[in-house]
């Protein structure tokens, strides 16, 4: 007897499962057709780290204190500085190797002047490892070139 009931319940369970899948068949698909449709990133989305552009000066806020270099667990930040005429340190070079960076945001939290932030950019492919070493000062240098009048 259990033989027959087993067959029946088995068959019934298969049908019940099929009803569920049929129900889902008429639902709206949940997938996004990336790259044709791009979802906006959440405000806290952690893209690659980058410098904050100060609203007042239009420059970065880095004071070359090297706290971020010390805290970085994956040793991906290279910072070079020089002592200027005003006895203050000036940033000469700031590079981050994204092949090493683990986006832990410890450097951002440790920064005393809030000079670093996560960019919202997530499409950062590169063809070689050397392209993944990002020079943070590059946009600022370019800006300087364009904005400063050429000396006579």
């Amino acid at each position, binding site marked *: 007897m259990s033989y027959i009931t087993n*067959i029946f319940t088995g068959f019934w369970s*298969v049908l019940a499962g099929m009803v569920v*899948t*049929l129900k889902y*068949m008429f639902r709206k*698909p949940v997938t996004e*057709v990336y790259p044709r449709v791009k979802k906006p990133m959440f405000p806290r989305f952690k893209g690659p780290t980058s410098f904050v552009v100060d609203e007042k000066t239009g420059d970065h806020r880095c004071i070359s204190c090297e706290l971020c270099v010390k805290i970085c667990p994956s040793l991906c930040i290279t910072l070079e500085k020089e002592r200027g005429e005003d006895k203050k340190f000036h940033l000469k070079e700031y590079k981050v190797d994204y092949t090493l960076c683990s986006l832990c945001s410890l450097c951002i939290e440790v920064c005393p002047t809030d000079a670093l932030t996560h960019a919202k950019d997530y499409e950062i492919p590169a063809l070689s490892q050397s392209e993944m070493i990002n020079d943070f000062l590059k946009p600022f240098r370019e800006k300087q070139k364009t904005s400063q009048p050429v000396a006579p």
Partner: protein
Amino acid sequence: MNELFRIILSLVIVIGFVLINSLVLVWLERKVSARIQLRRGPLYVGWFGLLQTFADALKMLGKELIFPKNCDKVLYFLAPILSFAPVLGAFLVIPFGQHLVIQDLNIGLLLVFAFSGLSFIGIFMAGWASNNKYSLLGGMRSVAQNISYEIPLLLSSLNIVMMAKSFRLSDIVRAQAHVPFILLQPLAFIIFITSALAESNRTPFDIPEAESELVAGFHTEYSGLRFGIFFISEYTYVFISSCVATALFLGGSHGPFLSGWAWFLMKAYFVVFVVMWVRWTLPRLRSDQLITFAWKVLIPLSLFNIICTALALQLLKQ
């Protein structure tokens, strides 16, 4: 001369149909699975992504054919060919319309079974020739599975033969002019569809290729168009099984308003859809459960069903 022309014409039509149909079926499978799984499936190549599979087929044409180092080269070469060759023959007797059948042989049903029974030889050959342990397991499983499900397949179709009194498929269709046999023989229909699923290695009976256990089973070592041929023949067997199911149980080309071939194709594709629907719902059986399912459930049930049919026919006659 006329006969020769007819042969050539039918060959061209059948080959064209097999190729295009399998591409359409792959597209349909992608769409059905996508919709069931809350996805969208192919969208952009062609209308609703219809040309996606054509593009994939073209890509497959450009893929290199690899002979694995340790394989048995002759068998490895022959295996996909042998699994494809019987496909065309099975189309000979399928009655797409009232008179739309290439050769209405009086052993039609047997011919279809004979041809589709040949397919697993190719699969087993592929499994053996690859000299790959996964493939060998897959090949072995396919033999066990095919021989086990052949019997319920035959037994369940015997009921229909008994009622229609002919092996000729067009006769069987004609016998269903008023009532399709599915209403008279629901149990036989279920057994038939189950065994047909197993014969064409579809989930939940796809143990010869069982990708989560055996990577890709018998076609692990196959690449490019050789793999494509296995694919085409698998989908064509699914379609042939649906056609036979349509002819045996669903009243074939009978239906109101539309012409016969349209009804037939609609029914056949509906069965194909059901087959896909089953595939995307159920998990896979284990190899021993699969085989014992055939022997312990399907065969006793179909034997029982034959006796019931015989009894019922006898009673009706009295």
